């Protein structure tokens, strides 16, 4: 029961309890008591002793990342729609390997999720330094191969967060 | 655009996915089709909620549905990779 543990427990209980309040919208004593105990229970289950957070997030970069990713998704979504609706189905799938030097597991998670979320590219395998990506055609591979995505992810998770 | 029209379109789309589930050459095609169907079902639930103006109830159901979908698909893929590795 050290100080960090108590702090994180309080943090998660507060976050979950606020979420409960916003979702349930009932403010009588019984409902709030049930909500608080549920939040506390979940926080107790998820906060394990000793596991420190090893990564840093730059929050303003993360806030910039979301609209950027969405604009890329929109562009490639229109492109993929064109490919699918084209009568001759002009797809030319490629499977390629991409080396990514990202500091932490969380950065790899964000990058793999972004690749899969973008239409036209799917992460097939991901580990510490390599991603195997399946793309629908040459145009879809652009953002991954030109390392634009990697740079944006690296801005959200700056280097220096150690690997677990 | 009327919401009932949206309901109809999504129902027809579910039938198209169902074609892939029934027909799909491999297990993974079926799995992907089922995933698509459950995404459609989540959207469908929210649309139904908006039609009846009881969104708060249907949103809870669809949240549970999304989580069940995640757990189910992860379990099945885990099983399939283990089975064919041997």
């Amino acid at each position, binding site marked *: 029961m050290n100080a960090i543990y108590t702090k994180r427990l309080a943090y998660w209980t507060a976050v979950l309890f606020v979420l409960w309040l916003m979702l349930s919208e009932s403010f009588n004593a019984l409902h709030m008591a049930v909500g608080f105990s549920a939040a506390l229970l979940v926080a107790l289950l998820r906060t394990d002793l000793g596991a420190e957070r090893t990564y840093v997030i730059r929050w303003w970069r993360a806030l910039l990342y979301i609209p950027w990713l969405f604009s890329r998704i929109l562009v490639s979504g229109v492109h*993929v729609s064109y490919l699918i609706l084209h009568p001759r*189905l002009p797809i030319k799938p490629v499977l390629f390997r991409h080396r990514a030097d990202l500091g932490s597991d969380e950065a790899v998670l964000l990058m793999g*999720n972004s690749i899969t*979320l*973008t239409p036209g590219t799917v992460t097939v395998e991901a580990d510490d330094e390599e991603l195997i990506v399946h793309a629908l055609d040459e145009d879809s591979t652009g953002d991954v191969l030109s390392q634009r995505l990697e740079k944006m992810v690296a801005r959200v998770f700056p280097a220096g967060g150690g690997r677990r | 655009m009327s919401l009932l029209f949206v309901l109809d379109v999504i129902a027809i789309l579910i039938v198209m996915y169902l074609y*892939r589930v029934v027909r799909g050459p491999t297990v993974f095609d079926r799995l992907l089709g089922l995933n*698509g169907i459950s995404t459609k079902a989540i959207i469908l639930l929210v649309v139904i909620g908006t039609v009846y103006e009881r969104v*708060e109830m249907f*949103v809870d159901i669809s949240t549970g549905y*999304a989580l069940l979908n995640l757990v189910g698909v992860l379990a099945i893929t885990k099983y399939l990779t283990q089975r064919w590795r041997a």
Partner: protein
Amino acid sequence: MIGIGLFFLVVAAVGMVRLPDVFTRSHAVSLTDSLGAFFVLMGLATYHGFSTNTFRILVVLALLILVNPVISHATVRAALRSGQKPVAEDRR
């Protein structure tokens, strides 16, 4: 807004039927998840104006966007590991 989302959903379903193998079909599914669901749910969230229901629908949308890439990644990885041959130029 709902109309745009519906368009992407229809395209994704057409792709699901037309595309040749698991790996290419997963692109169609990611089209549904990211664009179709986004536009339809955003349209529904503001359908009756802003209220607490807007927030609830946004929670479902966030959950969907976080969870669906994981699912399609898991499916595709299982397909590759169990020896499905993709119709693709292999540049690994």
